[in-house]
């Protein structure tokens, strides 16, 4: 239910304007507003509630109920900067209040200690801008704990021998095991690996105003009607609204950050629903628009003072994009799993989190999860073994047999940061508001592709040990499309090789902060949202610290 909010005038400078209401924006809005700051959140998408969510695969998957629409906001793609980019859908992100956290799988792995300092350990890697973070796991640990308790994460502390240290157990037990989880666990143990209950941002126990998961089976790509999925919308936005200090302004498409002659951000310029233009004034601006739209907004905000884009003196805005590598293997079993019931993942393993490059011949690491994340139409169109007839009796028979007997082993892994992999703006293609489109330039680092194959081999081993009747791996190709949008305004101490400092403050504009997937320095092992939320809790603390010390005053 929407709660009455304050209505701020655009001409009155609020303490903070936050662009984006997703995993990071939702957390920042809640933290800042409940600490007494006035906040306006500008969200380009609509304000949908649980009543608007639907299990209609057409509405959600084909008509992009919750996500960016390729007709309104077209993209282009090219492999290298030398190529001419061609129109092609290049990314999916949440475009509604709650952002991508509305429709995510909700795998909530913490990053491990190594993710923050791997560059120091392994040294430079050819073709990569691989770097350490300016913060460590220990710096972020209290905020991971905060995410688990405040947003709501189910899991079992100590279940994985590879887990990093934690200050508190999970606030609630793991979700029930699924058939896929049982098969995965048994096979992994046979192989001497260490499977464990997946930490998931889905409630296993009810919380005030939120139901525990009812196992409806429409999870990945869908919004949760019972608020069991710990989206920003279900967990953070209501608290921000209840503070009485936060206005969530949907259908507000920000396209420029205004800067005064002294080089300070003064507010955000946006189109409202009717495409009228407004400037929301603010004392400080926070961009949490995601790893594609945050850099695009900085590039669109180029001016005489900032000719290469705002906060881009490093030239790194939009660069070093990481999608996470991955491989999906599929197994079909004799008996019915009925894995369409429930959330996607119940068991994972981290035995391959840190691989020894001297042994495997490439840099990287990852984890495996057991999942079923397909809804009926999607399954029928995309998940029958190659060679199955596409229509007729045999097609129907395969569908009737396999839908309840299939699960996937999903290998998630690192992507190395490559400078040329980027989001930039393409002036040749315009969106429905007349703004230059997002252009993706991406070519996987060779090690990422090797890792994907290596993970697929482990998944196949597991499916063999599990006695799968049929198994195959989806083709592993160079990626031309992403949903994890990471690293494009990276954090660092060196203003020449990073866009923000460890406080999420841009090196170039004192009262402009960036916090979302773009802040990440390394990609983790494939599950970024937990870390994005933890960074947002930490960023709120750091920003409030700066305000207290008077560091943001004009």
């Amino acid at each position, binding site marked *: 239910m929407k709660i009455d909010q304050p209505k701020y005038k655009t001409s009155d400078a609020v303490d903070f304007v936050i662009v984006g209401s997703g995993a990071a924006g939702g957390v920042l809005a809640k933290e800042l507003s409940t600490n007494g700051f006035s906040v306006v959140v500008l969200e380009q998408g609509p304000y949908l509630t649980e009543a608007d969510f639907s299990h209609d695969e*057409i509405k959600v998957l084909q008509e992009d109920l919750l996500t960016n629409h390729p007709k309104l906001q077209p993209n282009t793609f090219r492999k290298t900067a030398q190529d001419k980019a061609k129109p092609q859908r290049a990314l999916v992100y949440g475009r509604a209040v709650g952002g991508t956290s509305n429709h995510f799988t909700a795998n909530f792995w913490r990053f491990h200690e190594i993710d923050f300092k791997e560059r120091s350990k392994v040294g430079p890697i050819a073709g990569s801008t691989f770097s350490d973070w300016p913060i460590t796991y220990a710096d972020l640990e209290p905020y991971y704990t905060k995410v688990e308790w405040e947003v709501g994460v189910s899991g079992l502390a100590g279940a994985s021998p590879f887990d990093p240290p934690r200050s508190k157990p999970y606030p609630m037990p793991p979700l029930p095991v699924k*058939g896929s989880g049982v098969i995965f666990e048994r096979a992994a143990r046979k192989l001497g690996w260490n499977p*464990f209950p997946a930490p998931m941002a889905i409630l296993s126990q009810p919380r005030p105003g939120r139901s525990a998961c009812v196992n409806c089976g429409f999870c990945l790509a869908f919004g949760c009607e019972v608020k069991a999925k710990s989206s920003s919308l279900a967990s953070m936005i209501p608290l921000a609204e209840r503070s009485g200090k936060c206005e969530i302004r949907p259908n507000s498409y920000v396209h420029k950050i205004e800067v005064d002659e002294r080089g300070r951000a003064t507010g955000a310029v946006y189109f409202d629903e009717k495409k009228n233009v407004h400037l929301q004034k603010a004392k400080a601006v926070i961009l949490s628009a995601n790893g594609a739209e945050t850099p695009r907004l900085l590039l669109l905000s180029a001016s005489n003072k900032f000719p290469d884009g705002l906060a881009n003196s490093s030239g790194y805005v939009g660069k070093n994009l990481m999608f996470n590598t991955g491989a999906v293997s599929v197994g079909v079993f004799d008996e*019915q799993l009925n894995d369409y019931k429930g959330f996607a993942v119940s068991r994972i393993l981290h035995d391959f989190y840190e691989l020894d490059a001297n042994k495997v011949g490439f840099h990287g690491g990852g984890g495996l999860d057991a999942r079923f994340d397909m809804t*009926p139409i999607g399954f029928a169109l995309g998940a029958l073994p190659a060679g199955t007839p596409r229509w007729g009796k045999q097609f129907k028979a395969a569908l009737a047999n396999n*839908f309840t007997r299939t699960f996937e082993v999903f290998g998630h892994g690192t992507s190395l940061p490559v400078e040329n992999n980027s989001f930039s703006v393409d002036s040749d293609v315009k969106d429905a508001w007349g703004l230059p489109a997002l252009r993706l330039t991406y070519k996987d680092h060779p090690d990422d592709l090797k890792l994907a194959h290596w993970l697929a081999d482990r998944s196949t081993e597991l499916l063999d040990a599990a006695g799968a009747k049929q198994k195959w791996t989806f083709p592993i190709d160079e990626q031309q499309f992403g949903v994890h949008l990471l690293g494009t305004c990276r954090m660092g101490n060196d203003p020449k090789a990073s866009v923000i400092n460890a406080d999420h403050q841009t090196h170039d504009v004192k009262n402009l902060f960036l916090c979302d997937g773009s802040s990440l320095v390394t990609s983790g092992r494939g599950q970024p949202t937990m870390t994005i939320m933890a960074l947002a809790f930490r960023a709120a603390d750091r920003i409030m610290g700066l305000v207290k010390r008077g560091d943001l005053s004009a």
Partner: protein
Amino acid sequence: MITELDRRQFLSRGLAAVGATWTAAHWPAVLSAAEHAHKAAASPETQKFEFFTPAEAREIEALSSCIIPSDGTPGAREAGVVYFIDRALVTFSVDDQKTYREGLPELQKRVTELFPGASLFSAATPDQQEAVLESLDEAGAKASPQRPQRLRYRRSAAAQPLFEVLRVHTIAGFLIDPEVGRKGNRDGLGWAVIGREPGHGFQPPFGFYDKNYPGWQAAPAALSVKKDADKQ
């Protein structure tokens, strides 16, 4: 059709499990429901088309019925797929109207080409219908090279795209959530065929493998130690 609000209340309650054997146990009921649905569909008074003419609808129904046949369990026909497609073409698939209007006459030409004397797809024999579709399914022929090649006919600029769109529409119309008001998956027959129980809330155990799961236990210490050693 229950309302969106009803459905959400229904969801929030959470549901008792209906059991993995639901499909098998309920087949007789499902089949009789199917028969009823088919009769209702066959009666022009009960349902009107928004896009197709009755003649076109007969052709589309016959085509979709080849894609998901009625063969002991309900197929596209019983699940009312033709009504879903008709609705689709005036709602989310308006862009495909042309594909249908131009593709159908072309497809009918193919029927005549292959079987001189025949002109309606719906009037052809099952074997003839299958031959027509095989001649249009280029992607399928490529995907399984062991299948006899029947692509000795010219490529049709209009009929092939129709086949591809119709295939997707038929699958969607068979498996769409029956409660969302798109006229597909009538009475949940499509979901019953693939073993998806109706409803939007389930309780574990979900299936065969998790039925007797003893609960999570930490791996024997030896394993963890071994892995730690491997990590060096």
